[in-house]
């Protein structure tokens, strides 16, 4: 399931509902991305995320499809915030359920790498010094490129 939402969400409640929904799976991996605390990152007071309704959801669906072609996945949940966020707020959550842990770990990692570099969101930091549009760092592109050369993952115990 893919959800782009303007309101805050509760990652704990989402994970709990996801696990119930994927009760037959042997492995569940979840990742939550949060707005870093202002103290740790040069006075960021808020984040502002915008998207292209309809097109953004399809861009996420394409990312999920790529993951499903690559790993044997039972269920996925992708939640992404838009609008204004405060330090500590969850921005993104990815949950993957599969039969075995390796698929779930790798698919969640892949989904996050591609959400960072290919999903259609635009993120602005509201800092003490002004507003700055954020673009993926080279490290983010490198992370996403890791998946280009490696072949299909073999199933394992």
């Amino acid at each position, binding site marked *: 399931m893919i959800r782009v939402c303007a309101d805050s969400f509760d990652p704990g409640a989402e994970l709990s509902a996801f696990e119930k929904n994927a009760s037959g799976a042997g492995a569940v991996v979840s990742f939550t991305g949060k707005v870093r605390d202002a103290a740790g990152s040069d006075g960021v007071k808020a984040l502002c995320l915008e998207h292209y309704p309809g097109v953004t959801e399809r861009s996420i669906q394409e990312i999920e499809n790529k993951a499903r072609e690559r790993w044997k996945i039972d269920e996925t949940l992708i939640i*992404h915030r838009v609008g204004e966020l405060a330090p500590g707020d969850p921005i993104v959550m990815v949950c993957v359920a599969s039969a075995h842990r390796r698929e779930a770990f790798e698919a969640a990692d892949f989904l996050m790498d591609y959400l960072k570099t290919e*999903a259609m969101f635009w*993120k602005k930091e509201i800092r003490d010094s002004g507003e700055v*549009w954020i673009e993926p760092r080279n490290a983010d592109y490198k992370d996403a490129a890791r998946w280009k050369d490696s072949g299909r993952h073999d199933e394992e115990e």
Partner: protein
Amino acid sequence: MARILFFGKLADAAGGRSCDFSLAPDTRTIDDLVSALSAKEAALAAVFNENAVRFIVNEMIASRDAAISDEDEIAFLPPVSGG
């Protein structure tokens, strides 16, 4: 009138998230539209020059040489930054 959408820093440069723009007869492709908008707004020209801007016509990803018409919705996307 074509509907033009700007996202991210392009909206700041354009002074708004959207506008209706009457395509001149010689504005046949996205590349022509980029030139027309750049001539109109220097701030937009700067972003077009410095960034890998992508294009969407009627909700489908399009290349810079894609044909456009006056009924289209044309979106300009700066580099994305989700997560």
